[in-house]
């Protein structure tokens, strides 16, 4: 997804002088071609995330379309106030692109894990929040949103899915609609595991890449079903909750630091986000519903 980010931005920059890259000493070699072609629009500014965001806001104030990019927690946790005030409150746009989603850097421990970004950025007025899941989504949504009048957050992962989805901004995708009483809703790369888990189960499956604005009209279509949100971050459950009075449950992160190192697959398995565990969680909901029906 990072390579797609670079490719898409490079293609856009060839025809659009407003694009400026601001890096926090990450992905620098990957952007080597961009640097050589546009030396006055490429800045490996340093490991100073607060200032990266403030400078991005200042560039935006003067009509540029900047992309600020570094590792997720350092940009979105550490610089949350700069995003909130310098970009959102000032109404300066710009593009915030992170790598290292959730447990992508599992082996580095909890300092490098990122799961609050979507939830916290979603709460900021003016913000657009994207949990991108595939390379297609990266390409399409950067092209459609990079010059949006609002600040836009793009969350990239090293573990994209390859499933065909609707890449229109603000729109979700119905991947399975069996008229079932249980609907699984998910977002981002974890779709790979969710799809495998649900493939042959009698459930509906709905996917989102845009968490803000969330596709409320699509959610409304499943109002009469129980909704099981399966997600490897915070933010999607809260976004779906914007539609009032739904029957919802969450299957995802524990209230704990998952500092067991290893790989993203290792951690997903331990916390129940591997395909088998997700399938078990869905089957439990199906069984509970069935039992509930018998009781009634």
């Amino acid at each position, binding site marked *: 997804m990072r390579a797609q980010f670079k490719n898409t931005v490079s293609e856009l920059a060839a025809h659009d002088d407003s694009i400026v890259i601001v890096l926090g000493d990450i992905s620098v070699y990957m952007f080597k071609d961009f640097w050589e072609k546009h030396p006055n629009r490429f800045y490996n500014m*340093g490991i100073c995330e*607060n200032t990266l965001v*403030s*400078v991005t*806001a200042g560039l935006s104030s*003067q009509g540029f379309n900047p992309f600020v990019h570094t590792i997720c927690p350092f940009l979105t946790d550490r610089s949350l106030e700069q995003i909130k*005030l310098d970009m959102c409150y000032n109404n300066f746009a710009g593009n915030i692109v992170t790598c290292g989603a959730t447990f992508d850097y599992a082996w580095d421990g909890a300092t490098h894990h990122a799961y609050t970004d979507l939830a916290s950025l979603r709460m900021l007025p003016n913000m657009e929040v994207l949990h991108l899941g595939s390379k297609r989504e990266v390409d399409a949504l950067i092209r459609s949103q990079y010059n949006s009048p609002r600040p836009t957050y793009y969350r990239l992962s090293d573990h994209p899915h390859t499933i065909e989805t609707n890449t229109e901004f603000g729109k979700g995708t119905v991947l399975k609609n069996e008229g079932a009483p249980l609907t699984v809703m998910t977002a981002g790369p974890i779709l790979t595991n969710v799809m495998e888990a649900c493939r042959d189960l009698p459930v509906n499956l709905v996917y989102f890449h845009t968490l803000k604005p969330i596709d409320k009209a699509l959610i409304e279509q499943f109002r009469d079903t129980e909704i099981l949100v399966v997600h490897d971050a915070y933010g999607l459950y809260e976004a779906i909750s914007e539609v009032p009075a739904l029957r919802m449950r969450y299957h995802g992160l524990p209230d704990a630091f998952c500092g067991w190192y290893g790989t993203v697959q290792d951690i997903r398995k331990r916390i129940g986000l591997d395909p088998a565990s997700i399938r078990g969680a869905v089957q439990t909901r199906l069984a509970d519903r069935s039992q509930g029906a018998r009781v009634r």
Partner: protein
Amino acid sequence: MDDICRKIRSEILNVSNKSGHGHIPTSFSIVEMLTAVYQTMRHDPKRPDMPERDLFVLSKGHASLGFYCTLAAHGYFSFEDVYAFGGFDSRFGCHPDRTKVPGVEASTGSLGHGIGIAVGMALAAKIASTKRKVYTLIGDGESNEGSVWEAVMVAVNTKLDNLTVLYDNNQSQGRCLPIGNPAERFAAFGCDVSEMQGHDLAAIKQALAKPTDRVRVLVCNTVKGYGCATLSENVYEWHRRAPKPDELTKLQGELHAGAI
């Protein structure tokens, strides 16, 4: 004290009295710095969004009262407009909002943010090959924030000779985390530093006019509440206080008598 600076201070007192909101001493300390900037930079109060204008960012946003009165003195709006300071639905909040007040380029309030935005603005001017100059005013207390020094490093490293940082050295942090010798510190970061008495309007303007090929820093040694002895000798008591009618009379008397 120059007449315009006395007038601005007098209106700061009036606004504070009428609105009930303060931050007078910190606003008083920057009046000459603000006046020097607005007498130097390219701007047009009748066209606040003039494309070729220079830019000013008040990073220490809590001194907005001084900022608004300076803008009023330069024709952006009337002093009477500012009497709504801090009131419900007023344009003039106790921290400036760029979307509400003409002449305000960035909304500030949380310390250590404005200078970073100003660095981005100056970088934008460089990328666009314009002659635009960018000015920002930061406080010494604000400079406890690490983000200030990040921004200075980035500005120096990106060679922003179109950026001027005015440092209000009003001894805010003597009580907790003082910045020992700010001129030496900025010089060590690679800036072109001038140090001056911060209430000498001519000296500040002269320093602003001097050509430079580096990030320019003016360390302005100022006095909180400069112009009124009651304020300058009791800065803690007056930090965020508005004068009552009898106190207003006394303060105006001190200001116009030239007492400190």
